[in-house]
């Protein structure tokens, strides 16, 4: 069978797969370097597209030096601290911790949404009470409600976390609801005939089998979580990764912004990867990805 390389039956070899899957990365990086070099030749002080050297330097400074706004007093400089210590005092680490903390809080607040979604799907009265409202609430563009959020939650941490919760919770809620509804009713009936009570059915029959899909759904919403978090930090903040990016934009500090963006992507990728790994080891029977 002489299937062309574009046919459904094509079977790329191992090396072809590797090369193809990295091709766009290489093309993107090459294009960037090429353009950046050309722009720097024309204007040595170019800041919009920094060179790799500048970005490395920018990132090194970000990871090894404290942020300017909390520069330590000059006495600290005399003793040279270890690399790890310097990293823990750095701007990058401080921003990552601030953003990471908000991220974890909001992830934790997604759990009640899962439980509520389960109950909505299983208990008709709970469903009747919440469903219409959540469906409506889901369509609200959270960002446009900011002034109300400020009044209700102040301009500190809480308003940023609530922005994420309001933005992402309805999606998770409705998804859990749908997954719960998707569990074959025969199973529920069967569980009852075997002597299960409401609690058993909800948590030991239904939740147990939708859980991997719920985790997946949370995983796919990581980007929305991050988007709302960034929006919140850019609007009013004193620290965080997006705060730094917003500040650096004011004077075209692209040599730090680009590595920061890549750093965020890397962190998100790692969270995603670990969630996939947890999902896989908790539910080895679950084969969808």
């Amino acid at each position: 069978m002489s299937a062309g390389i574009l046919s459904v039956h094509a079977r790329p070899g191992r090396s072809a797969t590797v090369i193809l899957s990295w091709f766009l990365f290489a093309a993107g990086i090459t294009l960037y370097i090429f353009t950046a070099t050309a722009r720097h030749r024309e204007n040595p002080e170019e800041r919009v597209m920094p060179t790799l050297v500048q970005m490395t330097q920018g990132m090194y400074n970000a990871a090894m030096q404290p942020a300017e706004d909390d520069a330590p007093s000059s006495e600290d400089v005399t003793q040279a601290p270890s690399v790890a210590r310097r990293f823990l005092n750095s701007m990058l680490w401080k921003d990552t911790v601030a953003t990471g903390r908000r991220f974890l809080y909001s992830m934790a607040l997604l759990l009640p949404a899962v439980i509520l979604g389960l109950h909505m799907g299983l208990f008709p009265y709970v469903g009747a009470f919440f469903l219409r409202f959540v469906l409506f609430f889901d369509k609200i563009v959270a960002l446009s409600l900011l002034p109300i959020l400020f009044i209700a939650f102040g301009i500190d941490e809480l308003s940023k976390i609530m922005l994420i919760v309001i933005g992402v919770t309805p999606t998770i809620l409705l998804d859990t609801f749908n997954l719960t509804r998707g569990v074959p009713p025969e199973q529920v009936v069967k569980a009852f005939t075997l002597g299960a009570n409401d609690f058993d059915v909800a948590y030991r029959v239904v939740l147990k089998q939708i859980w991997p899909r719920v985790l997946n759904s949370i995983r796919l919403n990581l980007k929305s979580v991050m988007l709302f978090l960034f929006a919140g930090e850019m609007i009013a903040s004193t620290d965080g990764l997006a705060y730094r990016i917003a500040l650096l934009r004011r004077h075209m500090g692209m040599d730090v912004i680009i590595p920061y963006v890549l750093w965020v992507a890397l962190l998100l990728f790692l969270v995603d990867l670990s969630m996939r790994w947890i999902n896989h080891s908790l539910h080895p029977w679950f084969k969808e990805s």
Partner: protein
Amino acid sequence: MSRIFIALIFLLTSGVSFAQKPTFTVGWSIYAGWTPYYYLNQSGILKKWADKYGIAIKVQRFDYAPSLDAFVAKNIDAVTMTNMEALDMPAASGVPTTAILIGDYSNGNDALLVRNGIALKDLAGKKLLLVQKTVSEYLLDRAMAINGLRDELKKVRLVNTSDADIATAFLSDTNTAATVTWKPMVSQILKQKGITSLFDSSKIPGEILDLTVVRSEVLDRPDGSGQKLAKALAGAWYELMSQMSATGPGTDKVLSAIAAGSQDTLASYKEQLSTTKMFYTPQSAADFGNSPDLKGKMALVRTFCFEHGLLGSNVASADDVAISYPDGSIQGKKDRVRLRFVSTYMQLAAQGKL
């Protein structure tokens, strides 16, 4: 939608003009001293002057930050910005820039507002909302320095807040003690009871300048088309300035037409103009540009920019981003002039030679 509209206009105009006219784009953003560009375009005044010099000038409205980005990326040829951003954005990014028109200076438009009548010396440890690394932070810096409280500055808890949300954020969160922002937000916030202004830009006159700048590379084009752009802009600008400052029934009509450019009312626009020191005559603008005062004020601004790292992380001294003045003097290294103030075009307008 507006992009399609602009594309359409572009298609239409390019179809009409068979001869290849040099075409330039001017960007502006909403601010009392810049909104006149909306009317310049709308009323045909700009077109009249562009035609006189045989060029075409397109006018486009931006948000402030994107207008700076577009200028630095060389997507537009001229733009409105403050003296501080002219120094720390294009000039510090290696895009030599020339200020051709000094439109006005902020004379109360930017203000430091506080809740419950607290004093400047009480700000330490309190939360203050502002857009960091902008003229707002400069104003705060100056307010503290003038009152001998510069050491306290580090203790103020600055919260970087987007200008779109700063008014609601400050008004709704009573834990915030102070804010530094500009009009129209200042007017909006001051309407609330218990909020007072501690310091405003009228106490540092001429330090926050609103300019029209052109990329030096465009201005110095060998075919002279950049010069024509500067002359056409100056001619059109001062024609409108004389209309805005005239006394008579027509003035209000012009002012409301300008106010419409920012969806504003005549009353509100007039209120903003009252705290904007417009240079209505080209002579007054040129005089300001030629005065030694300008150098002193720019010295303060460039020191601030350098101390806050706004000139870039690899700039060793403020002298690396040098500024030249109409009298030929240079602030900084002679071979690194990145920002030029010229009074040529204001002068030509004053002499009626445009």
